C-alpha cells in the first residue's frame, strides 16, 4: 500500500514547551488513522505542521512521497481545530471562496451543503450559525474538491449526539470510497469506533502505534488454562469465533468475535475433549487501557 503521509521525527518547540517530540508515523492509503491523546498532547500542533501552517522545529514530512505543495494540498481536505470562515458571508458564499482557492467546480458547493445537511441554511450568514452548524460547514468545505485524504481535527467537537453519529457515519462512508482519513481526537471511544489505526500521543511523544485492534480493544479478554496448552492452541486455531489469541506462560489470552461468550469457549473445549483448569473473564475498559498506554514508559 502506498503511503499517504510520512512523518519523520517531527518536533515543535514553543518557548518553554516541547509540543511535539521526535514524532514518526506513516499513514497508509485507505486507512482511517486516529491521532489520540489528552488535551495539550500535540495533536493540533502535529497536524498544523503537516498542513504547512505551523513551522517545524525539526524533522520532515511528505505527502504522497512529495514535499508539501499546491498539488499535494489539492489532494487533501483539512479542518484544523476550529471552523474558519468569514462571519459576514453566507454559507454558500464562504464555500464559493474556498472552491475558487481549491480550483473546485462550483457545482460541488451545493452537493457538499446537501451532504452535511445545511442546504436549507445556505443563504444564512456564518455568524448566525450554531457551533454544530459551523462544524458541519467546515466539514463540507473539506469535501469540496473531492479530496483523496481528509484531515479532521476534533470533527465532532460541539455536535449534538445525533450530529456526532452523523459525522461518524459520514467519515465511515467517505472511507468506504477508498479515501484516507486522518482524525485527531481526545475521545477514546470515537477513535475506537471509527479508526483502523491509531497513534497515541502524550506530551508530544508517541506512546503507541498500530492497528486499533492491537492497541485498543474494548473487548473482554478471556484467560484459559489447561494441562496441555499446545492442544488448546490447536483447537483455538480451528474455532471460527475466536478473534485473536496469545499464549502466555501457562495461560492463553483470547478475545472473541461479537456475539460469543466464554460459555461458547468452554463448550467447544469440552467437545474437543479438553477440560479447562481455569476460565477467567477479564473486563478491560478502554479508559483503563488508555491510561496503561499513557503511563507506560513515562
Amino acid at each position: 500500500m502506498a503511503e499517504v503521509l510520512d512523518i519523520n521525527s517531527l518536533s515543535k518547540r514553543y518557548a518553554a514547551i516541547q509540543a511535539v517530540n521526535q514524532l514518526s508515523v506513516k499513514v497508509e492509503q485507505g486507512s482511517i488513522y486516529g491521532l489520540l491523546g489528552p488535551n495539550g498532547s500535540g495533536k493540533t500542533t502535529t497536524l498544523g505542521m503537516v498542513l504547512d501552517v505551523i513551522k517545524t522545529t525539526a524533522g520532515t514530512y511528505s505527502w504522497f512521497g512529495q514535499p508539501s505543495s499546491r498539488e499535494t494540498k489539492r489532494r487533501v481536505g483539512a479542518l484544523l481545530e476550529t471552523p474558519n470562515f468569514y462571519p459576514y458571508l453566507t454559507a454558500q458564499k464562504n464555500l464559493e471562496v474556498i472552491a475558487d482557492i481549491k480550483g473546485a467546480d462550483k457545482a460541488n458547493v451545493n452537493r457538499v451543503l446537501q451532504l452535511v445537511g445545511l442546504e436549507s441554511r445556505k443563504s444564512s450568514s456564518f455568524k448566525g450559525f450554531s457551533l454544530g452548524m459551523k462544524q458541519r460547514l467546515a466539514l463540507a468545505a473539506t469535501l469540496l474538491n473531492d479530496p483523496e485524504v481528509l484531515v479532521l481535527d476534533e470533527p465532532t467537537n460541539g455536535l449534538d449526539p445525533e450530529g456526532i453519529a452523523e459525522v461518524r457515519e459520514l467519515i465511515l462512508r467517505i472511507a468506504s470510497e477508498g479515501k484516507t482519513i486522518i482524525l485527531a481526537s481526545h475521545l477514546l471511544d470515537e477513535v475506537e469506533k471509527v479508526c483502523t489505526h491509531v497513534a497515541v500521543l502524550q506530551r508530544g511523544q508517541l506512546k503507541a502505534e498500530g492497528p486499533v485492534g492491537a492497541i485498543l480493544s474494548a473487548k473482554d479478554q478471556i484467560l484459559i488454562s489447561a494441562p496441555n496448552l499446545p492442544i488448546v492452541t490447536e483447537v483455538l486455531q480451528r474455532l471460527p469465533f475466536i478473534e485473536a489469541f496469545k499464549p502466555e506462560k501457562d495461560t492463553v489470552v483470547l478475545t472473541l468475535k461479537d456475539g460469543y461468550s466464554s460459555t461458547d469457549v468452554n463448550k467447544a473445549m469440552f467437545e474437543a475433549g479438553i477440560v479447562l483448569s481455569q476460565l477467567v473473564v477479564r473486563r478491560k475498559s478502554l479508559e483503563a487501557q488508555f491510561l496503561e498506554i499513557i503511563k507506560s514508559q513515562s
Partner: protein
Amino acid sequence: MNLLRIEFRKILPYKTVWVILAIYVVLMVLVLNASSGITINGRQLGADAFQLPGVWQRLSFLASFFNLLLGILIIVLVSDEYSFRTLRQQVIDGLSRVEIVLAKFYVILAVAAFSTIFLLLLGLYFSLLYSTDHSVDAFFSQIDHLSYYFVQAVAYMALAMLFAFLIKKSGLAIIAFIAYAKIVEPLVHLRIPDTVDKYMPMKALGSLTPMPGQDLIDQFTTPTEQLTPPWAAVAGLFYIGLFLFLSYSLLKVRDL
C-alpha cells in the same frame, strides 16, 4: 487575476469596506465643497483652486491627507484574516504565502485605482465648473500629478499592510501605523539633516504630492530639501517593493 477575483468575493459583500470608502468619498467632497465656497477679499477661492491645470496638483495634495483612511481599510482587511483565521485556512487550502501577499497587493492596487479615478472625476467636475481655461492642453498638461498620487496611495497602503501582518490586531495596527506616519517619522526628521531624511518613506512619499505654492514659499525662506516627484516616485516604488517583501518574510518565518 484569480487572486483578485477571490478577494472581491470576500470584500464586495463586506459592509465595513463600503463604509470606509463612503467616508473617504464624503470627506473629500465635503472638503472640496467647503474650500470652493470660501471667499477671501471678496473673491471666491474655488475660482482659484480649480483653475486648470493647477487643479491636479491641488487635488492630489489634498487627497494625500486621506491616504491614512485607505491604509486603515487595508489594515482592517488583513487583520480580519487573522481574527477569522481564514489566512490559516487559505494556506491549508492551497494558497502559497507569496499569493497571500499578492492577493492583498492586488486589492491595494484596486483601491488606489478607485481613489485615483475618483480624483480624476472630481477634478473634471470642479474644473469644468470653475476653470476659465477649458482647452485640452490645460486639462492634460499636469495630469501626471494623478499618477504620482497613485504611487503614493499604493505605498501608504503597502505600509499599512505591513503593519497589519506584523501586529495582526486591527486596533493596535491602526494606532502603530498612524503613530509611525504622523509622529515617529516626523520626529526623526527633526533630528537628521534634510539631505538624508528626504529619502525616508513618509517624506519621500509626501514629496509625490508637493504642496501647491511651495516654490513660492521657498523664494522667501530657506527651501526645505525635497525629492522632485519623479525621483520620489522611484523611491515610492522601491518602498512598495520593500513593504511587500517584508510582509512576505513575516508570513514565512512565523506560524499562522
